[in-house]
């Protein structure tokens, strides 16, 4: 398989190091610095799973921790991990993963018949129908439901990996290494505070990695690199990537999960796979950024429908096109950034904007690039089954009573 959706240049991946991996038994290639998701999209794989009840096809929706669909079963060093987000799993040589929640396989899924019979399945169908007769439960109903529902299969073997716990104390805990996180960490550290800076992803910089911004006379990315290097050299600062702060408890007790070895083919001897930090912080700054809120329209769960911020991330960080005929549906300026990125890479996007006459610098930039912009337009429904192929669109009428 070749990488039809990978650009010739761009992104933060290491193109000099090719990595081979397997998804659903098929062999593909990606690069060092890819996630499983970016590598699959680069290879044109958009169907990764099935939904829980109706077994509708599922693709990629986000590019990180917000991914709701692309959950896979991982196989690493003869250990299975049943619920891994493909958007978070970094690629390593020999990675093996497969789809969950589809039987017999992702392309032909028996449960999808539920999708077409949907009208006849009232809510609570599972609970009411399978209750009687009682003797049927263990032998017939339960095994079938187990097969039709649930994500992944847990291992029944003992986990050979090591896991650690650690207590830590600091003056300031900062969650997220975007512009505000870095600036606060730097200011506090220079004043002698004991600082912990936690970044969920493998790369520091947050939105600076995907936005065209300058700080002083440097690009956002260069500035981030400079600040991180300086922070790492300071004895009163702990800088951690692949570390997600996931709980905020009483009296400023926070809990952080550090993924030490998940991105490696196997853990090094005596090095744990993950480490759980209990951090007691005097002050906390939550600079985690925000997750884009999806717009609502019919069939917005079809593979190929995704967040525009995710599309931008795949382009800017991984040099991957999520599609070659993108339709950007937006109600604010952020969609334009994505469209402009596509245009700069030789792809013609169409923008649908719900607003009547928006006006800003970025919209002017998009117009100057001759991007097709349709104002007062909405997507009514996406079309396609295993992959989106078109969309029904409509103009918002002046009186907003009909379209």
């Amino acid at each position: 398989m070749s990488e039809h959706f990978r650009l010739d240049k761009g992104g933060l991946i290491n193109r000099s190091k090719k990595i081979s991996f397997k998804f659903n038994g098929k062999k593909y290639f990606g690069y060092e610095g890819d996630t499983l998701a970016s590598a699959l999209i680069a290879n044109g794989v958009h169907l990764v799973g099935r939904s829980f009840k109706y077994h509708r096809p599922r693709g990629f929706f986000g590019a990180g921790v917000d991914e709701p669909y692309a959950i896979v079963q991982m196989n690493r060093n003869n250990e299975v991990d049943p619920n891994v987000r493909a958007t978070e799993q970094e690629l390593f040589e020999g990675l093996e993963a497969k789809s969950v929640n589809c039987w017999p396989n992702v392309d032909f899924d028996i449960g999808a018949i539920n999708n077409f019979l949907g009208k006849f399945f009232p809510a609570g169908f599972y609970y009411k129908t399978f209750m009687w007769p009682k003797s049927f439960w263990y032998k017939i109903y339960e095994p079938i439901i187990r097969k039709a529902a649930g994500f992944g299969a847990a291992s029944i073997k003992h986990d050979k990996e090591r896991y650690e716990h650690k207590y830590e104390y600091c003056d300031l805990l900062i969650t997220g290494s975007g512009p505000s996180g870095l600036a606060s960490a730097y200011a506090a550290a220079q004043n002698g505070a004991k600082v912990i800076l936690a970044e969920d992803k493998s790369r520091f910089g947050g939105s600076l990695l995907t936005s065209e911004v300058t700080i002083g006379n440097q690009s956002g990315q260069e500035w981030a690199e400079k600040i991180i290097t300086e922070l790492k050299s300071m004895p009163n600062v702990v800088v951690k990537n692949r570390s997600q702060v996931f709980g905020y408890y009483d009296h400023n007790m926070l809990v952080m999960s550090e993924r030490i070895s998940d991105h490696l083919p196997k853990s090094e001897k005596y090095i744990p796979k993950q480490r759980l930090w209990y951090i007691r912080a005097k002050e906390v700054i939550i600079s985690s950024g925000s997750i884009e809120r999806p717009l609502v329209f019919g069939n917005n769960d079809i593979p190929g429908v995704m967040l525009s911020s995710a599309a931008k991330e795949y382009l800017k960080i991984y040099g991957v096109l999520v599609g070659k005929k993108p339709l950007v549906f937006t109600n604010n300026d952020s969609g334009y950034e994505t469209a402009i990125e596509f245009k700069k890479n030789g792809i013609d996007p169409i923008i649908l904007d719900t607003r009547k006459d928006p006006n800003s610098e970025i919209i002017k930039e998009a117009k100057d690039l001759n991007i097709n912009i349709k104002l007062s337009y909405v997507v009514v429904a996406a079309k396609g089954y295993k992959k989106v192929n078109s969309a029904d669109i409509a103009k918002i009428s002046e009186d907003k009573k009909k379209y």
Partner: protein
Amino acid sequence: MLHIKCPHCGLRSQNEFSYGGDATVKRPELNKDVSDKDWDNFVYLRKSPRGKHLELWQHISGCRQWIKVERDTLTHEIFKTLKASEEA
């Protein structure tokens, strides 16, 4: 997890302490007739207030001393901590 200031050791995490209940309960006086009802009240009945509450804690994984903690049961705010012998 709470952060409790032991008067003997300083600020420590809650998992070093064990909870000892309401610190305002008084044992019936010795060598006096006590009704069954009073004994029952002393042994079993406790208020469950919403708000300020004076309670006993033992620094079981530290100095092992009993201490008094004035805590808000709703917000977990700790107003003050005292040695067991001190009056609130």
